[in-house]
């Protein structure tokens, strides 16, 4: 189980390869990766700001809650901050469990909570100027299903 908050890129293939190795009781691995969309060429870059200290606490708390609700053999959360460009990987979560339902549910739970409860803020820069990304009602509403 691990949580990492970092400015540097991460190697998605290498992370998943390492995560998926040596898990004796695991039958199912689910990963989610967030990617910067190019928005039809309108987005030049994105700056992700976060709250050092609280970010790590919030992600660890969300991961603890996922482990409390599902029987996971492993979990991983990586989230970047700083400058990201279209095609860059913003973050990933990975979950490992005996069966697929738990792995899928835990990954979706981690994503829903991470979206609305981890202190990250995105500002987009592009042809139309710069603007903070607004939180979506649907993201807040997604929490009600858990």
């Amino acid at each position: 189980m691990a949580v990492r908050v970092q400015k540097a890129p991460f190697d998605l293939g290498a992370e998943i390869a390492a995560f998926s190795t040596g898990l004796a009781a695991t039958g199912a691995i689910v990963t989610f990766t967030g990617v910067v969309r190019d928005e039809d060429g309108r987005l030049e870059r994105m700056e992700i700001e976060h709250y050092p200290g609280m970010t790590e606490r919030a992600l660890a708390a969300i991961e603890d809650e996922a482990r409390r609700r599902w029987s996971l053999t492993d979990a991983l959360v990586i989230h970047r901050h700083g400058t990201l460009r279209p095609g860059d990987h913003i973050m990933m979560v990975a979950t490992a469990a005996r069966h697929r339902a738990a792995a899928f549910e835990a990954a979706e739970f981690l994503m829903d909570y991470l979206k609305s409860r981890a202190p990250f803020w995105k500002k987009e820069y592009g042809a139309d100027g710069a603007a903070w990304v607004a939180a979506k009602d649907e993201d807040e509403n997604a929490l009600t299903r858990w």
Partner: protein
Amino acid sequence: MTLDVLYFAWVRERIGLPRERIETEAATVSALVEELIAREDRYAAAFADLSALRVAVDQDLTDFGASLSGAREVAFFPPMTGG
């Protein structure tokens, strides 16, 4: 008491600084916000619509009615947009 007050995203931009140390006797987050609003227009602008803001006390999300007793760090920011 002495509080570290932190601002993120557009709250930081409106107030014009990421953090400051504040001497206050405010008992709650709301009372602290009232003090800040009374200071200068840029605070009044940042705190004009509290429904658009979130607050954390000592790095735990809470609400504006929260007590500041024993608190060391208060942070104001818009709803998070991680993921």
